[in-house]
C-alpha cells in the first residue's frame, strides 16, 4: 500500500496532495501493466478505472465505421486517463490502446467517489486537480481543432 501511495505522490496529477489523502485513496488503487497493442478501455464499456500513467505511451482513439480508428491524442508519463469516468453514466467514450509497454495505477472510480463523499476535503482537492486538467485539455483541444499549422 505504501509503495502505491509513493507512486501516486510522485505523479503530477497528485502533486502536493497531503499524505493523509494519499492514504485514503490508496485502497482504491492497483498497479496495472499493458503490453503494446493491449487496450486500456473500449468505447461504451463501463468506466471502472481512472488510470494514472507512470510510464509508456497510450493512443486515445475514435473508431470511424468507414475509416477505422484515428488517434486523436497520445498520453504518456505524467498523464491521466479516464477523468470523464467521474461523470454519470460511467462509460468510456473512447478507445485507449497501449502503443508500448505501459505502466499505470488504476484507481477504482466508485471507490474514489465514495472516499470523496466521505471526506469532502479530499473531494475538493481532487476536484481542483480535475478542473485544472479539464482546463488544460480544453486549451489543447481548441488549438488542435483550429488547424494551427494551416496556410
Amino acid at each position, binding site marked *: 500500500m505504501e509503495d502505491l501511495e509513493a507512486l501516486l505522490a510522485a505523479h503530477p496529477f497528485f502533486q502536493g496532495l497531503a499524505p493523509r489523502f494519499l492514504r485514503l485513496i490508496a485502497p482504491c488503487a492497483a498497479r496495472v501493466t499493458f503490453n503494446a497493442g493491449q487496450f486500456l478501455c473500449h468505447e461504451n464499456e463501463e468506466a471502472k478505472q481512472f488510470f494514472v500513467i507512470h510510464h509508456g505511451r497510450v*493512443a486515445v482513439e475514435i473508431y470511424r465505421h468507414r475509416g477505422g480508428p484515428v488517434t486523436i491524442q*497520445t498520453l504518456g508519463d505524467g498523464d491521466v486517463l479516464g477523468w470523464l469516468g467521474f461523470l454519470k453514466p460511467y462509460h468510456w467514450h473512447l478507445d485507449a490502446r497501449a502503443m508500448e509497454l505501459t505502466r499505470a495505477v488504476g484507481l477504482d472510480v466508485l471507490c474514489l467517489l465514495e472516499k470523496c463523499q466521505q471526506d469532502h476535503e479530499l473531494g475538493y482537492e481532487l476536484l481542483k486537480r480535475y478542473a485544472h486538467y479539464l482546463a488544460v485539455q480544453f486549451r*489543447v483541444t481548441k*488549438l488542435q481543432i483550429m488547424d494551427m499549422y494551416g496556410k
Partner: protein
Amino acid sequence: MKTGDRGPETGNMEMSLDALIHPAAAQPMAPRQFLVQNVRRETPDTFTLTLARPNPEEGLIFAPGQFNMLYAFGVGEAPISISGDPDRPHLLVHTIREVGNVTRALCHQKPGRAIGVRGPFGAFWPVAEAQGNDVLVVAGGLGLAPLRPAIYYLLSRRAAYGSVEIIYGARTPQDLLYRRELERWRGRFDLRVHVTVDAAPSDWKTNVGVVTALLPRARLDPFHTVAFLCGPGVMMRFTVRELLNLGLKEDRIFVSLERHMKCGLGMCGHCQLGPVFVCKDGPVFRYDRVKDWLDRREV
C-alpha cells in the same frame, strides 16, 4: 554568454560582418542567377529546391535563420528562408509551400532552370551566442525550414551545447517536412526529438496532440535554456505562454516572424511591425523586443 545570464541578442549583420560576406551590399536590388539542381517534394504542397551558381566555386554564405528574396522570372519575388546547411554554402536550399503565384512558379521549377536570388537578408538565430546553454527548438508546420540551418549548426558543434531538444508539430503525418532527416535525428543519443501531429491513423508510432502539450516533457532548465521558435503566429503565441509558465525568461526566447515584403532591405516599409522592419531587424527577434507588437490586431 555565461549560463544564467540574460539571453543572447539575435545575430545581426553589423555585429558579425567579419564572419559573413554580404553579397546584397554591393547591388542589393539586383538578383543573382542560380540554377535549379534538384526539386524534392516534401508534402503535397511543399517542395525543397536546391540551387547552385553556374560557377560551382561561388556559393552564398549565410547564417541560420536568414532569408533570400527568390525571383521566379516573369512572375515575381518572394521572401523565402534558407533551409540548408550553413557549412555547405555552395548549395542553396529553400523549402517552399505553394500558396500563390510566386511560390507556385518556384515550386514547379525544373532542374537546369534559372532563378534570381537576392540576399541573404536579416538577423539570425543566435546559435553562436547560445553556446554553453541547452537549446530548445520548437517548430510548427513549415516553421521547421528556417530552423533547420540552426539545427545543422548545433549538431556540427554538438559538444559546445548542453542538451539539445527539438519539438516539431504538424497537422498530419503527411504534412511533416524532412521525414528521413527527422528519423536520423531521433536515432542520435545526443539529441531529443519529439514529433507530434493533430491526428493520425492508428499505425502512427509517436505523439498526437499540439506542440504546447509536449513542452512539459522537455527536460528544461529555465536558467540555462535558450528557445528558438518558428511556426504560425498562434502556435508561437501559445508556445511562448507555455515556456513562460515553465519559468523561461522572455530574453531567452527567440521567434522568427513573417510579414509581407517587397525590398527586403529596410527601405520600402512593407514589412513594418511597430518600430521594427521585419526584413532588416528580423525575421529573428528576441521575444521581449517584439512582444508588445505581436498580439496587436491592428498592426
